[in-house]
């Protein structure tokens, strides 16, 4: 948000004050409009709160030591192996996707002439990639990584599939972070005789780091919550992979674990507890991401708008 926007929204707020409830009683149509907007907002937040509270109350009683046993058995239904698999997959998928995504964003923002044809193609395909549903990624992963490359249901196949899933997310958030870096810093760097590379790596990227981090964290959340794209690429074996060939072991991630528990319908308690753990992870990731996004705005010298 620019300063001008900020000012105009403040002016708007001041104008608003004058037309408060008193006027509303004279205009029933306006009253209905306002009430319906209130209702929608309350409904939205209400649904979320209901979901959270429901999960917390049903989940907490089932958070017991069994659930956090090191090894999974059909008795203890431990979520630890699935949790660790999720973390491993997240780490590897990020290692694959972040360099590519950040590099792509650097090209799109710092190098390209914004009107060139190739940029339009890249933007279009990145947008397409972002819109593809998980299940289609799952199908593709199953066709390409699992069968065509012969990796079988494996950590590797799941990881590569997820790397593609999060790629557009990383690209977009990095792009936004780079755009938020003021041109004045780029100019200052060029004016000192620095080349493009040095300007990008020493000035622009460091300033954009919080925004890039925010995007990476969102991507992490996506991996943690993903099930359709990993079920038929990574498999569903609730064990921590080990040994030399661990990349080729089939694994079960936490979200898939929750799906299995709930679709069997036999262990509602454990399903709630697992869901609770998932939600807490997402909540933490979300908060972190918002924190870094705010840091970016502050760092890039922008006022904290109403977000």
């Amino acid at each position, binding site marked *: 948000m620019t300063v001008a926007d900020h000012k105009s929204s403040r002016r708007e707020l001041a104008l608003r004050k004058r037309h408060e409830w008193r006027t509303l009683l004279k205009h029933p149509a306006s009253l209905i409009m306002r009430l319906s907007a209130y209702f929608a907002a309350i409904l939205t937040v209400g649904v979320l709160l209901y979901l959270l509270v429901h999960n917390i109350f049903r989940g907490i009683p089932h958070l017991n030591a069994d659930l956090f046993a090191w090894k999974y058995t059909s008795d203890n239904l431990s979520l630890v192996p699935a949790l660790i698999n999720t973390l491993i997959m997240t780490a590897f998928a990020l290692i694959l996707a972040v360099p590519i995504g950040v590099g792509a964003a650097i090209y799109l923002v710092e190098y390209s002439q914004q009107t060139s044809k190739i940029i339009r193609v890249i933007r279009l395909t990145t947008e397409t990639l972002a819109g593809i549903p998980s299940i289609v990624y799952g199908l593709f992963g199953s066709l390409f990584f699992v069968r065509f490359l012969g990796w079988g249901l494996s950590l590797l196949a799941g990881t590569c599939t997820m790397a593609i899933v999060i790629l557009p997310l990383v690209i977009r958030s990095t792009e936004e972070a780079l755009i938020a870096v003021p041109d004045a810093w780029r100019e*200052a760097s060029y*004016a000192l005789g620095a080349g493009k590379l040095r300007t990008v790596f020493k*000035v622009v990227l*460091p300033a954009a780091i919080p925004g890039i981090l925010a995007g990476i964290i969102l991507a992490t959340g996506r991996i943690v919550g993903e099930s359709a794209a990993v079920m038929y690429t990574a498999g569903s074996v609730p064990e921590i992979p080990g040994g030399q060939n661990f990349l080729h072991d089939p694994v079960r991630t936490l979200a898939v674990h929750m799906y299995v528990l709930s679709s069997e319908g036999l262990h509602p308690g454990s399903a709630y507890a697992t869901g609770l753990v998932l939600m807490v992870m997402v909540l933490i990731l979300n908060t972190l991401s918002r924190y870094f996004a705010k840091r970016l705005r502050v760092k890039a010298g922008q006022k904290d708008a109403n977000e």
Partner: protein
Amino acid sequence: MTNNEITMEEILGHDVARDLTDDAVLDIAAPLSDKIAFEIRDLDLFYGDFQALKNVNMDIRQNAITTFIGPSGCGKSTLLRCLNRMNDLIESCRIEGSISLYGENIGGNNIDVNMLRKRVGMVFQKPNPFPMSVYDNVAYGPRTHGIRSRAKLDDLVESVLREAVLWDEVKDSLRKSALALSGGQQQRLCIARALAVRPDVLLLDEPTSALDPISTSKIEDLVMRLKSTYTIVMVTHNMQQAVRISDETAFFLLGEVIEMTDTKSLFAMPADRRTEAYITGRFG
């Protein structure tokens, strides 16, 4: 990389040698140098279809302060940015004519723009220190040009901060973020940062327009002091400022240089009626 480093030290050494032998440096009260730094000939500049500079011819003297004045949008910044080819960054910008620096055409394809910008430093209207420490801001340029030695950097940082009359204010907070400095300090830091690559020329685009009167006068003093070592070209909207500090002044109007001569005569008896109208405040 190593190749680069040796070259840079050579250049730096050369600079220092020049500083010590050049008469202009030793004798601050020396008369205006006759040497010409920039020769601008028949310069036309276009942003897309819009012609922002029309047939500009100008000589800029070494070790003098040259100011550009004129109403907003008349092309002062544009010409300034031609001198270190910052306009290269603007896609729609096209230039005809020639600019040479000490006889060498800077517009050619065989020119290394980064080297040119090292020799022709620039300070912007809004202070734009990097979001790094004070030290790293100043050291950014030298590091860019291959100086890695800690001791050398320390010396350099201290000496340019002294040159920019900022050392006493920041010597205890070299490691603190430059963004925490006041606006005036930030602008002097930007000047120090530009000096740290030991340029020949310093371009200043309305360096005081965002500052309070005290900071402004500090920067004016600083610029006058720097004149002995550097060739200075400055854009200003402040007529008193031009009179106070500059040796030569060029008046711009709608992309043309209406007249350019030594500052005293330009303000005392402008040759062109439009100049007179502008400096007496009748338009602009």
